[in-house]
């Protein structure tokens, strides 16, 4: 499976070391269906491929991806400018269960870069689709300067209930200072009707799940996105195995009920 060539239409530096790009195919081709929570394999010439989640659903054949420098390949991708090209394979994996959202009390819980795969969800909600009964967004980050989509989050907070919390900030920062588990624990949750989409560092998700379960949220109402090493994205290379799951094709979004036995096994 060879990558299709895409070109960078626009590039925004979110904060140093992290950028969001919109890319479209170099040669015209049918737009491939993709959904929030899925990912593409992005190829930087000669450097290699990395899995990067969808950070926006354009519906016009272009993709939006947020890239943070983590290693060699992401460094090469981050270095690309508008007009430069890259390779794209995808989309792969299972996304967020949008069909379950209607009528539910939706809690979107994002930590750090975990906001990236959840952004299309919030954008869809802002556009009036999916029709949940209510929406609360909890977004935790390290510092206000390291929050993704800052201007957009500001817009969202005018239409939705948005709680932002950072580990460190000056008191001029209008959000909370502390950790995300605190506002999540304090949130009013209708346990019968709640639906949670959770994405962030694994340890952050673990603590959030503890809080949610303590509140009485059902395991089947919690969905989360997992990260493991991926090379092929199609269940052949074996790298992303996590218990019986291939994170690339069975995930990356899993229902917590289904993966609960594996979630707490260390070094799995």
């Amino acid at each position, binding site marked *: 499976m060879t990558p299709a060539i895409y070109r960078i239409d626009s590039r925004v530096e979110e904060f140093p*070391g992290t950028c969001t790009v919109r890319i479209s195919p170099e040669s015209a081709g049918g737009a491939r269906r993709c959904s929030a929570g899925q990912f593409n394999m992005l190829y930087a010439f000669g450097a290699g491929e990395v899995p990067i989640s969808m950070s926006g659903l354009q519906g016009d054949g272009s993709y939006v991806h947020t890239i*943070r*420098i*983590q290693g060699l390949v992401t460094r090469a991708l981050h270095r690309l400018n508008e007009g430069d090209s890259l390779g794209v394979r995808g989309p792969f994996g299972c996304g967020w269960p949008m069909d379950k959202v209607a009528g539910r009390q939706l809690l979107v819980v994002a*930590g*750090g*870069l975990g906001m990236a795969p959840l952004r299309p969800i919030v954008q869809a909600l802002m556009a009036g689709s999916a029709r949940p009964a209510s929406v609360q967004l909890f977004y*935790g*980050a*390290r510092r206000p300067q*390291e929050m993704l989509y800052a201007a957009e989050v500001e817009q969202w907070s005018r239409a939705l209930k948005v709680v932002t919390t950072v*580990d460190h*900030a*000056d*008191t001029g920062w209008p959000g*909370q*200072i*502390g*950790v995300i*588990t*605190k*506002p999540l*624990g*304090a949130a009013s949750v209708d346990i019968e009707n709640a639906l949670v989409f959770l994405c*962030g*560092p694994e*340890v*952050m998700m673990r*603590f959030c799940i503890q809080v949610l379960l303590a509140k009485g949220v059902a395991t089947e109402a919690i969905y989360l996105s997992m990260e493991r090493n991926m090379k092929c994205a199609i269940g052949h290379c074996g790298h992303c195995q996590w218990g019986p799951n291939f994170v690339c094709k069975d995930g990356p979004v899993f229902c917590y009920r289904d993966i609960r036995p594996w979630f707490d096994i260390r070094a799995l």
Partner: protein
Amino acid sequence: MRGIQQLLQQHALFQDLPEADLTLIGGCGENCVYNAGEYIARENAPADFFYVIREGRVAVETYMPNHGALCLQTLHDGDIFGWSWLFPPYRWTFDARALEKVRAVRLDGKCLRQKCEEDPRLGFELMKRFARIVTERLQATRLQLLDVYSSERPRTAETRQ
């Protein structure tokens, strides 16, 4: 007085306390308002009160000579501020400052301390409830220390191959 008791009754900290205890605690409380920038507590000053924040944001801060005030945490509607009144030497360990207009119930710890000494049952009940807040804050602090959103590897972890 009746109003304070009702306010307390609705708060998780005082849930299911016997009516008599609530009356007693309510008797030690009064409503108060702080304007943005006003200090609610100052490091090292006597800690004779604790607060149920009803509305507004409070910053828990410490002062660094080469930096100024450093905010460790913000507290919000429904949060409790202050447990120093329970433990000797009964002095605040951090500053607390209103970041906006804050409405709170201020409870007289000095008076409650006295009553807890006299009535160990009440003392234990309050101690349990405050210990819960302390452990929650400790847990949150540890999580904050983990620096989970950093792209750096945790400094405390042993170096893996």
